[in-house]
């Protein structure tokens, strides 16, 4: 009787396809995955703990380092949480600026997810195309706040600075070019038969399971559940925009990928509308709410969540009335989306594991926190 033996394969912590220092211990039968054990914590920096010894404002640069691919959204989530705790009303102009930069951040993150997914499946050029647009976005971020990835742009009660003069022509040019670029991704990556063969029907995540495990973001929506906080529980001024929430049908890798591409188009629409409204507002309107110099929120606890690039990004801030938060907890979507990795990988080939991790779009800064 011929017997085969299982063997283990360490995928990571240093591996080209794990999107950072993530280790996946694969039990393989030939090329087929029998079991996948995720092992994380290689990038753990204890940001939640660090936040306890910082003032409320000083936490903002640390939130940049959670999901460093969409740092504006992290900023936004934290800042809105503290505002909720203190009951601060943010001026309308600041809200629009926030929407613009956070949707740009979502675009940047999805650009990277799309590109890196193509790279995971072996199409190097598919990696470079979205990166070209991401580069333009980062240049604009640099104009706005001086940094390309770790922005620290939002402040409690508003934003750090007004949008600079040179930003407006740049974003207008970008918005004009962007739809054609997404068409290019569609032609180069989405429409490619090999790509579809690699992703369609791979690792189907049922909507029931997705809800049970608390999946969120494009991963949840790909399973056919129309749940986007921007629509369901609008925060900021998101209720004033006209956009759609792309929903997948099958919940396979292709849908998860495609959801992101479709979301890019919607983000593009939101930015266009927000920019229009922002320019209609009078210049004199303030950018910051009246906030005391030393931020001392009243005693209490608050939980607030926004729709991050990877999913529902929630912040839980507990205040004991001092200048430092008593506890900051972050609901990191990447971490929670990763919880089903074992089940999703079982029975698929090694090459599919790469496709599955890529379709979940994890960022290790956020997984390990």
């Amino acid at each position, binding site marked *: 009787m011929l017997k085969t033996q299982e063997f283990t394969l360490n995928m990571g912590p240093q591996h080209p396809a794990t999107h950072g220092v993530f280790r996946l211990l694969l039990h393989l039968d030939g090329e087929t995955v029998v079991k996948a054990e995720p092992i994380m914590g290689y990038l753990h920096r204890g940001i939640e703990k660090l936040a306890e010894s910082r003032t409320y404002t000083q936490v903002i640069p640390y939130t940049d380092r959670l999901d460093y691919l969409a740092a504006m959204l992290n900023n936004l989530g934290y800042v809105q949480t503290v505002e909720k705790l203190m009951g601060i009303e943010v001026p309308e102009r600041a809200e629009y600026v926030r929407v613009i930069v956070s949707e740009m951040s979502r675009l940047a993150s999805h650009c990277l997810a799309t590109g890196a997914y*193509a790279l995971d499946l072996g199409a190097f050029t598919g990696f470079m195309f979205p990166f070209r647009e991401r580069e333009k976005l980062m240049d604009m971020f640099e104009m706005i706040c001086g940094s390309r990835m770790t922005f620290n742009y939002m402040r409690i009660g508003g934003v750090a600075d007004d949008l600079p003069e040179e930003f407006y022509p740049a974003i207008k040019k970008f918005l004009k070019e962007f739809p054609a670029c997404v068409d290019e991704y569609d032609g180069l990556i989405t429409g490619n038969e*090999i790509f579809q063969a690699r992703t369609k029907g791979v690792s189907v995540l049922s909507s029931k399971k997705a809800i049970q495990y608390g999946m969120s973001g494009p991963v949840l929506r790909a399973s056919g559940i129309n749940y986007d906080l921007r629509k369901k529980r609008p925060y900021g001024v998101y209720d004033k925009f006209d956009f759609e929430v792309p929903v997948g049908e099958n919940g396979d890798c292709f849908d998860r990928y495609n959801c992101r591409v479709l979301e890019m188009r919607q983000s593009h629409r939101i930015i266009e509308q927000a920019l229009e409204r922002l320019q209609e507002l009078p210049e004199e309107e303030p950018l910051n709410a009246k906030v005391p110099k030393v931020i001392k929120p009243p005693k209490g606890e608050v939980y607030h969540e926004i729709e991050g690039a990877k999913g529902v990004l929630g912040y839980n801030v507990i205040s004991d009335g001092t200048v430092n938060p008593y506890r900051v907890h972050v609901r990191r979507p990447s971490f929670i989306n990763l919880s089903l990795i074992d089940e999703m990988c079982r029975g698929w080939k090694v090459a599919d594991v790469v496709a599955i991790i890529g379709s979940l779009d994890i960022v290790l800064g956020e997984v390990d926190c």
Partner: protein
Amino acid sequence: MENLFTNLAGSLRAALESTGLPAILTDTSMTMVKLTAILVFILLNALWLVYMERKVAGYIQFRPGPNRVGPKGLLQTTADIGKLMSKEVVIPKQADKVLFLLAPALVFAPPLMVFAVVPFGENMAAIDMNIGLFYFLAVASLSTVIFWMAGWSSNNKYSLLGGMRVVAQMVSYELPLVLSILGVVMITGTLNISEIVRSQQGIWFIFAQPLAFLIFFIAGVAECNRAPFDLAEGESELVAGPFTEYSGMGFAMFFLAEYASALVISFMCAILFLGGWLAPFGMTFIPGWIWMFLKVYLVMFLIMWIRWTYPRIRVDQLMGFGWKVLVPLSLANIFVTGLVMKIFKMLGW
């Protein structure tokens, strides 16, 4: 111009004969000279192809490609090879040392041996073998063993997986490769490569056998482990497949051999389907070997272009594609070719 190299060889032979050497020695030294020339040719081409690949990749990805070392970055590969030579060859502790070191040394042999029968132009084959095509098929598949040696001896799970993939892939793509050529062989009735080229005077086989060309091209790309069939290397899943543990010159040898085998496939495409050294549209003022070269580089560019466009196929899909699509198609091609030939014969053409 047309007979530049044949004349050179002829005068060299005459010079050797005039020194009064016995005939067998003359023949041997002539063969040696030819083979050395081929070796130099392949190595130079491999160097150039690495550069070209990087340039093409760069241009496709909005980058200028290598542009610092030498004029237009032409010396980039040379510099890289120099760097790799100066690196330590790390041998893993648990590796099978002999096989581990033997694999990169041998990896160049199969493509090199194939080139012995490849005609670079009219009468420009080092050895004009009458079973040249058969020899090509036999020798080209030898590299399977070498990749497997590298994969097995590294004692690394990634290498092992890569090695297994190479064997599975090469064995299953050998079949459509052979079957697709059969159509050509049936028409020409010969296995001599030069004869096959000559019989394309009337019509190139890419027009007579388009399906066979497609199958041959796909199977050929798979044979030399190029994207989208670069499963063996499978960078995003298997790190570097059988080459994971290699460093320094060992790695460089694999790297260059990849281009050498891609060159073999390009040559074969040009010879079997694109009319070899025959000039299209009667443009005979350009020598045949330049035509040959142009056609080879056209195919080479096509391979590169495809590599930098497509994602990688999965291993089971690769097998399925090979056995369920390419093999039946090539069999059908043989059948149709035979049928048409029979009909033509009946019609008395």
